[in-house]
Structures are given as structure tokens and as C-alpha cells.
């Protein structure tokens, strides 16, 4: 088989082994690659950092274990930033699993900042309506009258003087789903609340038009976004250590695409030279 055909026929198993090795080496022995801190993540950090102590932030949790590799480190870094700034946090599980991730914050992060449940933060219950639940948030106390455990929220200190979404200083969805679009549709036009959209990398192309039109103020995207936020907020996390591995994975894919196309180019040249019409 000519060399240009062989580089187009690398087996799946060889590719998968190369992928695991490309990830494992930098995880075991970090390579120290640079991490560019994007203007988007910096804007997100600055927006939250500028909120006065005591402001209420609404964090919508729209991810599940399928995408928690990107979203969980973001949520931890951002929650730590909230709590270091003495912001009050309302956690809303947009997806079914969201409540469990909020419980993890309760168990592993809140205590580090002396945060008290019901006074400094609260976890609302999951609502099955999805988009219509967010649309219904304009009448906050019609939609929510209890927290995730069924306790009445009206008696909780965090809700004293809280009229509804108009009193939220920032909406911060951390998501693998489309809830940022729903906050843009139903909450932002009414209350002009700043939205900082955080989530999986494929979210950015979808919300790009809303960022350009300033309906979403800033974004924290993907595992690299989580790593950038960890550095900006000076909080420890797993994302920073994963970026070298991420870089090697991207390099491997670019290399494989290049090999495939070099092979195709020389294959077509050889076929042309042999006077054969190639069909690709």
C-alpha cells in the first residue's frame, strides 16, 4: 500500500491509544503550557467582583453528569468567588440533577466561608416546566413557595425584602443546556438583569449572537473557561491541571486531520498522473 494510503488508514485502536497517552502524560507530568485568559472570562469575573456584598445572585444549574467535566469546575470556582465576596446565592436546579450539585456545594464549599443555609444561600426545588418555569419566574412566589427540602421560603432570612427577580443582581446559569437563552427571552427584557452565561464549549456558538447584542453580558466557556476563572478568582480547582492534557488532545486531532488531508492530496495527484479520474 502506498504511503499516502497508509496514513489515511490508521486504525481506530491506534488512534484511541494515542489519545489516552496524549492525555495521560501531561496529567502525570504537567508540561507548563501557557493559558490565555480571554477577555470574556475576565469580563465575567469583573462583573461578579463588582457586585456589592449582600447582593443576591441567581445561579441556575443546568447540567448533568454527562457534561459535568466542564460545568462542575466552573460552578465550584464561581461559587467560591460568590462566597468570598459575601454575595447571597439562590441556586436553582434547571435540570433534574442540579439539586445534587447544589448539595455538593453545600457539603464541600459553603462551610469554608462560614455560609449558613437559609441566610446566605438557598437551594430551590427543580421545576418540571423547563422553559415555562423560567417564564414563570416573573411571578416568583407563585412558582416557588418552598426550598428543595419542602421548607417554606417566606420565613428564610435570605428572602426577607426579596420581591422577585427584579431584586437579583446577576443571573449566572452554569449549563450544558439552553437555559441562558430562556433567561434572555423572559427575564432580561423585563428586568435588564445582567446575565453571565457559563457552560459547555458548544454553548458559545449558540449564545454568540446574544453576547454580541449585549443581552448576555459575558461568558465563561468550557474547561478552559473554568481554568481561567480559577486563576482570576485565585481559587484551587481541577480545571487548571487539565489544560495541558486538553492541549495535547487538540494537537493530536489537528495532526490526524492534517495526515488525512496530506494523504488525500498525494492520492489525487497520483491518480491524476496515472490518468485516472478520481471520485475522491
Amino acid at each position, binding site marked *: 500500500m502506498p504511503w499516502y494510503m497508509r496514513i489515511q488508514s490508521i486504525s481506530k485502536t491506534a488512534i484511541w491509544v494515542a489519545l489516552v497517552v496524549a492525555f495521560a502524560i501531561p496529567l502525570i507530568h504537567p508540561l507548563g503550557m501557557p493559558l490565555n485568559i480571554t477577555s470574556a472570562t475576565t469580563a465575567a469575573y469583573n462583573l461578579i467582583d463588582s457586585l456589592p456584598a449582600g447582593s443576591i445572585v441567581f445561579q441556575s444549574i443546568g447540567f448533568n453528569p454527562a457534561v459535568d467535566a466542564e460545568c462542575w469546575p466552573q460552578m465550584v470556582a464561581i461559587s467560591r468567588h460568590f462566597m468570598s465576596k459575601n454575595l447571597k446565592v439562590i441556586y436553582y436546579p434547571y435540570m433534574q440533577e442540579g439539586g445534587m450539585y447544589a448539595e455538593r456545594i453545600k457539603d464541600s464549599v459553603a462551610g469554608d466561608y462560614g455560609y449558613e443555609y437559609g441566610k446566605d444561600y438557598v437551594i430551590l426545588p427543580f421545576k418540571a416546566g423547563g422553559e415555562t418555569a423560567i417564564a414563570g419566574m416573573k411571578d416568583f412566589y407563585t412558582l416557588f413557595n418552598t426550598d428543595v427540602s419542602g421548607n417554606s421560603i417566606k420565613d428564610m432570612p435570605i428572602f426577607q425584602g426579596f420581591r422577585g427577580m427584579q431584586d437579583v443582581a446577576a443571573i449566572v446559569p452554569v449549563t450544558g443546556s439552553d437555559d441562558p437563552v430562556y433567561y434572555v427571552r423572559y427575564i432580561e427584557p423585563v428586568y435588564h438583569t445582567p446575565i453571565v452565561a457559563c457552560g459547555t464549549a458548544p454553548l458559545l456558538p449558540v449564545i454568540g*449572537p446574544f453576547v454580541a447584542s449585549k443581552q448576555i453580558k459575558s461568558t465563561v466557556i468550557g474547561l478552559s473557561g473554568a481554568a481561567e476563572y480559577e486563576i482570576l478568582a485565585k481559587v484551587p480547582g481541577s480545571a487548571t491541571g487539565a489544560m495541558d492534557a486538553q*492541549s495535547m488532545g487538540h494537537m493530536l486531532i489537528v495532526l490526524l486531520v492534517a495526515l488525512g488531508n496530506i494523504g488525500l492530496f498525494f492520492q489525487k495527484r497520483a491518480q491524476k498522473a496515472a490518468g485516472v479520474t478520481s471520485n475522491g
Partner: protein
Amino acid sequence: MRRTVPLLVGFISGAIVVAKYFIANKALSTWGTNVISWRNIVAAFALGVGSINLIQTHLRKMARKERGWDASILLLISLVGFTVIGIAKGTTNPIYKWGFDYLYQPIYSAISSLLAFMITSASYRAFKVKDWQSAVLTVTAVIVMLGAVGVGSLLYKGIPRWSQWIMDVVNTAGMRGITIGGALGAVALSLRVLLGLERGYLGGER
């Protein structure tokens, strides 16, 4: 009658929500709010429908000893066990949390990580530049992939800037066209649903 009444219910409930938005009237506003909150309750009932279907399917599989019936036993043990714990003791119960942290989450995240293997081998096979359109697709994908991580700036210091430009300008232009087109489509489809022209969700004739 069996289709007319549901279509009427759909129209009235949707019309109340639309009217609440456009007409400033206290009674209409209250009814609109109620209808939206009722939808969340009905949607909560819908969550159980899929699970009951699942139970039916796997019980049938076990009864007929069809292929994979032994795995169905595990499914039903997991389903019933965690349902009982979750309803009786709540989702903050240590056993339920343990199940989420050490059974559900690792399995689900591992299944989604299989995509990394698939996307790597698929990219290698599928990303072949054959015409100008595939060239544009490939070049932008490569620039964005390299620009998103540290290795891009090591290869060439302009790559992160180009990647940012592609995302901020070119991608936004393309996705904005799709967003606007999608908005028109969503409004058209919603109007069709309200007016009873879209009936697929009602199922077949009975």
C-alpha cells in the same frame, strides 16, 4: 370531538398566556400566571410516564426471558431501590447521595466520555478537504481548536486572536442568521399549534 376538545383546550390555554403579555388586565394577568404554573404541575406528572413505560418494557422482557433480561433485573432493582429511598428519606439522604456520587455520576460521565474516542476517529476520517466549503469548515475548526488552548499560542502567537475574531464576528454572523430564522420558525410553529393546524402531538386516529 376526541380531537376538537383537546385542540380547543390548547388554543384557550395558549391564548390566555399570549393575552396576558399584550393586554394589561389584572384578571387576565392572574389567569395567565396560573396557567403557566399549572403547566409546571402537569409537566411533573409527565416525568413519571417515561419511567412507567420503562418498567413495563423491562418487566415484559423479564417475563419472556428475552435477550438481556438479566440486565433488566439490575435496572428494576436500581429504579425501585432509589425511588423508595428518595421518596421516603429525601434526596439529601446519605444513601441516595452515595448512589448519585458513586454509581450514577461515574457511569453517566464515563458513557459521555466515550464520545471523545468517537469524535477523534471520526474527525480523522471525515475531515477531508474536497471543495471550498469543506476547506472553510476545516480551516475554521482547526483555528478555533488551537486557539482555545495554550498550544495554539505556542505554534503561532496570532492564533488565539484569529480564533477570537472567528467566534466574535464570523460565527456570530452565521449563528445570528440562524437565530433570526429560528425565531421566525418558532413563532410560525407556535401559531400553528395554537390554531390547531399542527396536530401531530395528538397521536393517531382512534
